[in-house]
């Protein structure tokens, strides 16, 4: 649709306004993270420090932070691998099998996506306690796999439904077993779906807070979100360090998102728009 010149100008101003509203808090986070501890805060706020420094990053990258980072990495990557594997196997059967119970099972997957985490956390906590898993990686990985699995199945199901049936059918005619079709045809073809789902699971687990706060009790098991929250009280309002830590926590997921944005956007919208 072609716009008139004045409409176009107004729309471009709106674009600018939108970008500014979204970016201002980010810009400030970054600017404060570069502010030397000696430079005072002032009203009106100074948007850019007079002598920027990376001191805050150096201080914030303390041993505890590195431990939290490592814990987050272990828990998130394990969750991504397990969830996506289980999700793909299930999604394959959900889209290819002709089972009588199928529509009921799909309903159970959809319903499970809506369970409030806070409403089921107490029985899960007690199960972890009985199993002796509290304050271990496994308590978090198990919890994260279960809460991300329904959405992962749903996203992968959307992708598998869109694969052309003819390729698999002709392979079946040539005598390929279902397992062979799965490995040689379905897995390679669903790569975009696997990437999109992995990014989604990573973003969710990297920031998960409620389970991590409830299931970990010692500093050596904390993940980044909980560790970051601890920093607030611990170091008073040393905002420079807090903002530097925040930037370091956010960078990995942002970087991954930017490289794989295309897949992720397709994955998120496929379920909602077509489903």
């Amino acid at each position, binding site marked *: *649709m072609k*716009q008139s010149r004045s409409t*176009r100008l107004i*729309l471009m101003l709106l*674009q600018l306004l*939108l*970008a500014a509203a*979204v970016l201002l808090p980010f810009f*400030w*986070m970054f600017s404060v993270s570069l502010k030397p501890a000696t430079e005072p*805060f002032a*009203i*009106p*706020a100074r948007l850019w420090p007079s002598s920027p420094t990376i001191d805050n990053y150096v201080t914030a990258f303390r041993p505890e932070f590195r431990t939290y980072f490592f814990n987050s990495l272990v828990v998130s990557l394990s969750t991504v691998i397990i969830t996506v594997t*289980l999700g793909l*196997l*299930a999604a*394959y059967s959900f889209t290819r*099998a002709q*089972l009588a119970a199928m529509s009921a099972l799909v309903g*159970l*997957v959809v319903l*499970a996506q*809506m*369970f*409030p*985490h*806070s*409403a*089921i*956390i*107490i*029985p*899960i*906590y*007690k199960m972890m306690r009985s199993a002796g898993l509290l304050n271990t990686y496994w308590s978090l990985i198990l919890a994260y*796999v*279960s*809460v991300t*699995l329904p959405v992962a*199945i749903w996203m992968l199901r959307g992708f598998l439904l869109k694969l052309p049936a003819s390729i698999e059918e002709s392979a079946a005619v040539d005598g390929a077993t*279902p397992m062979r079709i799965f490995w040689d045809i379905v897995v390679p073809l669903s790569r975009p779906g696997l990437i999109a789902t992995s990014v989604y699971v990573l973003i969710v687990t990297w*920031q998960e807070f409620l389970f991590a706060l409830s299931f970990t009790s010692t500093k050596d098991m904390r993940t980044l*979100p*909980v560790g*970051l929250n601890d920093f*607030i009280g611990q170091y008073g*309002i040393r*905002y420079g360090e807090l903002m530097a830590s925040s930037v370091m926590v*956010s960078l990995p*997921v*942002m970087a991954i*998102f*930017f490289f794989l*944005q295309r897949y992720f*956007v397709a994955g*998120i*919208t496929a379920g*909602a728009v077509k*489903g």
Partner: protein
Amino acid sequence: MRQDRWLHWLLLAPALVVMAVMLYYPMLGTVYESFHETSFLNPDPKFVGFALYQRVLADGTFYTVLLNSIVWTLGVVLLQNILGFLTALLLNQQLPMQGVLRAIVLLPFILPGVVAAILWRFMYDPQLGLVNSLLLQVGLIDHSIAWLADSRMAMASVIVAAVWKGFPFSMLIYLAALQNVDQSQIEAATLDGAGPVRRLFDVTLPAIRDVVVVNIVLTLILTFNYFDIIWVLTKGGPQSATHIFPTKIFETGFGQFRFGEAATYGVFSILVLALLVALYAIVQGGANRRRAAA
């Protein structure tokens, strides 16, 4: 075929077992817990019937939490969807830099929730925060406001932070829907002399109606259950002014080790959420019938 059936059950089994043990069983477990009392001193659960329900209902905090949850959910859902839709409309226009702008708009959505909350805590800081600084400079306020410590401002403040974080998600879904709208219909309406506003209400909105419904239900559920922002910004305070079900459940369960009462709040939260979704379904159904009749 028979063999295939076994194979498919085998592939489904791991996912089904995980969901049964870690989601459906705990869901029933919450109901069980709500009939059993535990405390820090008496960790062994004891059956108490409906006693915990009576205790929760007799406590004024419950009604504060209920009201807060509704205000919070409706506030965030409405603002986030309106803002998300308007942003999607803008991003759907033929303008330069749209790809870059979309990536920028998505930033708050990828930002970890705790980071977003800490950032907004800092933005709202009465002495150092950017919000007061900007409003003072523009002249909208004449003295610094303690946004999160003032019980009249706290809820509005957490809602604004949550909308900033959440609207990109709604935008993404609306944008995908807008890109799927049949362009020939819009062109036909234009030829009939319909202006942009008429086209929006007569062609675009009816075409994406299902996506609007999905988006609202989705954000309703996500917002109702969202814990991170409020916990980091206010911990439910001041004086429970921002306590919603998830923060109250966490505080009761893991702050005070009253698992039974926390589970009772959990059961209530599920009922209230189901009621909100059902109410929306009724309103939406009514609107659809009126439209069909018209």
